[in-house]
């Protein structure tokens, strides 16, 4: 028995992707999944800190189009050496903003191989599959794979709790019976 060459797809459909680095590792994401790329500096005033959510990879939330987006630290998500993120991908149709090191380049892929079944951990959620580019294998991330429904529930609860505390503080009265500032 001999490993047969991969059969050529009937029609190769090219997909635009962005190659980016997180914690030194190279990843790809479909450019159609990225709504916007923002620098971390530009988000400095807009991001609200989240504490006590239990989700360590998310420390900040963004309000955008009446929706709360959660900034996922890519290095923590993938358990990579921590690096200072410089860019944030705002992802379409998710509530994820992904903190990354840098964009490597934009290119296109013509073949996406499903993640081999030997991979049986949470990476099955993380990746759409693998692609070979310039004799290198790059995992193609799934935009939905950064936050699970359970994690979103905990994050929403943390945001709601923070909001409730802020409202309570705003409505509190001083000992003199005046609204607290």
């Amino acid at each position, binding site marked *: *028995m*001999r*490993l*047969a*060459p*991969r059969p050529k797809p009937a029609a190769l459909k090219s997909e635009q992707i962005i190659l980016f680095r997180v914690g030194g*590792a*190279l*990843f790809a994401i479909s450019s159609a999944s990225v709504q916007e790329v923002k620098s971390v500096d530009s988000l400095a005033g807009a991001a609200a800190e989240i504490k006590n959510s239990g989700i360590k990879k998310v420390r900040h939330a963004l309000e955008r189009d009446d929706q709360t987006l959660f900034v996922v630290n890519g290095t923590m998500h*993938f*358990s*990579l050496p921590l690096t200072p993120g410089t860019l944030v991908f705002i992802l379409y149709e998710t509530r994820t903003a992904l903190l990354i090191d840098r964009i490597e380049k934009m290119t296109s892929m013509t073949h996406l*191989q499903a993640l*081999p*079944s*030997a*991979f*049986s*951990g*949470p*990476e099955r959620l*993380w990746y759409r599959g*693998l692609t*070979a580019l310039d*004799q*290198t*294998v*790059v*995992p193609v991330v799934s935009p939905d794979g950064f936050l699970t429904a359970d994690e979103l529930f905990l994050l929403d609860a943390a945001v709601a709790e923070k909001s409730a505390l802020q409202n309570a503080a705003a409505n509190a009265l001083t000992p003199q019976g005046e609204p607290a500032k």
Partner: protein
Amino acid sequence: MTSASQLELPSELQQELQSVVLLRLGDRRFAIAANQISELVAPSRIFRFPHRSSNVEGVILRRGRIVPVCEVAERLLGKRILDRRFYLIALRRYASQSEWIALPVTGECELINAEITAPGEDDAPHVSGWISHDGNVIEVLNVAALTTPVSPVAEARS
């Protein structure tokens, strides 16, 4: 590798014999049914990316396919082996499909015909049988069981 047809065994004996590939891991030899083996290839660049499958080291590119490299020495020998000379490309059966995986081995492989003895009740799940060859008793490996991740609980018990 020596092909099965080159062995020229009597036909009545061939009926009881099965083709297996002998492989070497460190100083031990193991066998895998030949119909589960594709080829033996020289080590090529291994690509690593984040994942949590402890028995998968990464992937290699082979004939345009991306093939996962599954570390089996730790389970078979109790230690990892750094000296690798080849990858044995084997067929790994899953519930609904089969896929190729690369098993790092430390020596050349050999195709032989041998009579396979059924495994005993006390044998580990990755043992699908035994053969006798050159005065040695050699485990025939069940690739699927060998590359199934061991749960932390089961690992602690063993």
